[in-house]
C-alpha cells in the first residue's frame, strides 16, 4: 500500500534537470543527497506524525483517574522490560515477547507451509479439471466460510494435543484463498500457452512447472498473501485457547492476571509482525513474477 506513495516520489527526481542551467558545482552535492533524504522523509514523517498524534489522544483520554485502560506512560512504566528487551529469559514461562512471537511464527510457518503446498496442488487440480471443479468447488465454498476457531474443537479431538491442533487451524484457515486463487490463475492460462505446450508435447510434470506455475504465479501469490494474513489472525486466537508459550496465550494470560499494559505491548508486536509477514510475501511475489505481467 505504500506503492502509490513511492510513485508520487518519483517527480522529486526532476530537479536533476536543473543541473543544465546551473553550472555551480556546489549544487550537485545537494542534488545527489536531497532527493534521497526527501524520499526517506516523505516515507517516514507522515506515519510518525500520525503515531504521535494517536499516542497524544490516547494519553489525554486515559490519563485521568478512573480510566479503564492504561495510558501510554503507564504502559511504558509497567511493561518496560517487555518493550526494551524482546529476548529476555527469566524462567521457562517468563520469556521476552520476541521468543513468544518466534514460537507462534514457527506454528504459522508449519501450518502455512503445508497450506501453501496443498493449496497450490489442489488449486491446480481444480483449475485444470472440470470434474474436480464441479466436485470440489461447492464443498470448498461452504467449508471456507467456517470461522477458524470453529475447527479447533474438532482438531483438538483428533490430535489430542494443543500444538498440532493450533497448526491444523492455521492450515485450514490459510488454505482456502490459496486454493481458490490458484484455481483462478490456472483457468486464466492463455490458450496460446496451452497450444505451445501441446505442440511441444510437454508431459504433465513439465506442463505443471514450465507453464502452469509461472503463468498462474501472480494469482498464486495473491492467494498466499491473503493466506498468511488469515493465518496470523488465526494463530493468536487459537493460542488463546490452546495455551503454550505463543503470543496469543500471553495475551490471555495477561488478561487473567490483569496486566493490561502487557496486552497493549503484545498487540503492537502482533501488528508489526503481521505487517512484516504481509510485506515479505508481497516482496517474494514481486520478485517471482517480475516477467509474467508483461507480455
Amino acid at each position, binding site marked *: 500500500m505504500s506503492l502509490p506513495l513511492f510513485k508520487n516520489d518519483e517527480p522529486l527526481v526532476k530537479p536533476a534537470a536543473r543541473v543544465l542551467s546551473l553550472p555551480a558545482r556546489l549544487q550537485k552535492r545537494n542534488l545527489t543527497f536531497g532527493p534521497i533524504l526527501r524520499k526517506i522523509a516523505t516515507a517516514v514523517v507522515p506515519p510518525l506524525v500520525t503515531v504521535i498524534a494517536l499516542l497524544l489522544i490516547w494519553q489525554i483520554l486515559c490519563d485521568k483517574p478512573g480510566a479503564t485502560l492504561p495510558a501510554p506512560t503507564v504502559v511504558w512504566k509497567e511493561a518496560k522490560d517487555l518493550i526494551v528487551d524482546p529476548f529476555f529469559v527469566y524462567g521457562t514461562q517468563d520469556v521476552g515477547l520476541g521468543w513468544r512471537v518466534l514460537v507462534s511464527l514457527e506454528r504459522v510457518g508449519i501450518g502455512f507451509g503445508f497450506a501453501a503446498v496443498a493449496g497450490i496442488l489442489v488449486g491446480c487440480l481444480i483449475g485444470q479439471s472440470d470434474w474436480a471443479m464441479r466436485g470440489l468447488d461447492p464443498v470448498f465454498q461452504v467449508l471456507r466460510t467456517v470461522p477458524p476457531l470453529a475447527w479447533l474443537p474438532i482438531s483438538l479431538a483428533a490430535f489430542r494435543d494443543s500444538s498440532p491442533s493450533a497448526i491444523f487451524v492455521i492450515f485450514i484457515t490459510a488454505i482456502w484463498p490459496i486454493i481458490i486463487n490458484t484455481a483462478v490463475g490456472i483457468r486464466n492460462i*492463455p490458450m*496460446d*500457452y496451452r*497450444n*505451445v505446450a*501441446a*505442440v*511441444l*508435447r*510437454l508431459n504433465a510434470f*513439465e506442463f505443471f512447472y*514450465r*507453464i502452469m506455475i*509461472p*503463468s498462474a*504465479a501472480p494469482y498464486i501469490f495473491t492467494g498466499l498473501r491473503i493466506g498468511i494474513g488469515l493465518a496470523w489472525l488465526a494463530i493468536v486466537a487459537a493460542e488463546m485457547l490452546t495455551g503454550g508459550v505463543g503470543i496469543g496465550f500471553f495475551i490471555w494470560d495477561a488478561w487473567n492476571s490483569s496486566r493490561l499494559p502487557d496486552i497493549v505491548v503484545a498487540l503492537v508486536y502482533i501488528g508489526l509482525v503481521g505487517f512484516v509477514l504481509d510485506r515479505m510475501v508481497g516482496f517474494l511475489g514481486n520478485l517471482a*513474477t517480475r*516477467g*509474467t*505481467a*508483461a*507480455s
Partner: protein
Amino acid sequence: MERPYLKIDHVSKTFQRGGAVSEVLKDVTLVINKGEYVSVIGHSGCGKSTLLNMVAGLLPVTSGAILLEDREVNSPGPDRAVVFQNHSLLPWLSVYDNVKLAVDKVFSGTRSRAERHEWNMHNLELVQMAHAKDKRPGEISGGMKQRVGLARALSMEPKVLLLDEPFGALDALTRAHLQDSVMQIHASLGNTVIMITHDVDEAVLLSDRIVMLTNGPAAHVGEVLEVGLVRPRKRLELVSNSQYIKAREGVLKFLYERHRFVEAA
C-alpha cells in the same frame, strides 16, 4: 509425380456448443508437396485458423482425415510447428530460453548439451535475434517477438511449418522485412509451409500456390492458384512483373468479385 507429402482429405469441421451446431468447413481437400509454400487466404471468420489448427492437431477433425507422410494426424507434435498470430512466447522466459524449451524437448535424446546450445543460437541467428537472447519478450518489439516465435518453430525441424497470420499484427515495414527473412529461410532450408494470410501481396510474393477459401459457413476450397514466379523473388522487381500482376488480380477477383464478404454471414 511423387507421393503426396501432406494430404488434407475431405475434411469437415463442425462446432457444437449447447444445441447450436455450426458447420465451419465442409469437404476441404488439399494436397501439398514436400518443400512447397502454400498460402491459405479467405475472408475473416471463414475457418482458416480452424483448418490450420486441425493440421497442427490442436483441433480434431469432424470427418475426413489429414495425412502427413501417409500417417494420420490426430494429436499435436513438434513435427508440425506453429507460429501463432500473437507470437505466444512465454513471458517469464528469456528469448533464448523460449527457444531452448523447444530445442531441449525435441532433441534431448539425440544431441548433447553443447550441440543443443549451438542449434539454439543457430536458429536465433537465422532470424537475426541472437543479440537479444537474454531479453524477455516484454522487452522486445512485436516484430522481434514474431522472429523469435519463428526461430522457436524452426528449431523443432518440423516437417511442416504452420504460420497463422504471422505478420498480421505488424506495421508494413517490419512486415516486409520479415517476409524477406521467411523467403530466405525457405530458400535455404526448403521447409514445407502452410501460411494463413489476409494480405494478397504477401500471398503472391511468398507462395508457390494460393488456396482460396469460400466464405463460411461450410467453407471449402474455392480455387487454387499456381503463382509460378521464379525464385528468388525480389519485391521491387515484381511490382511491374506481368505474371505477378496477373496472380494478384486472380486472388483479388476471387475475394472481391465472386466471394464478396457478406456482412450478415
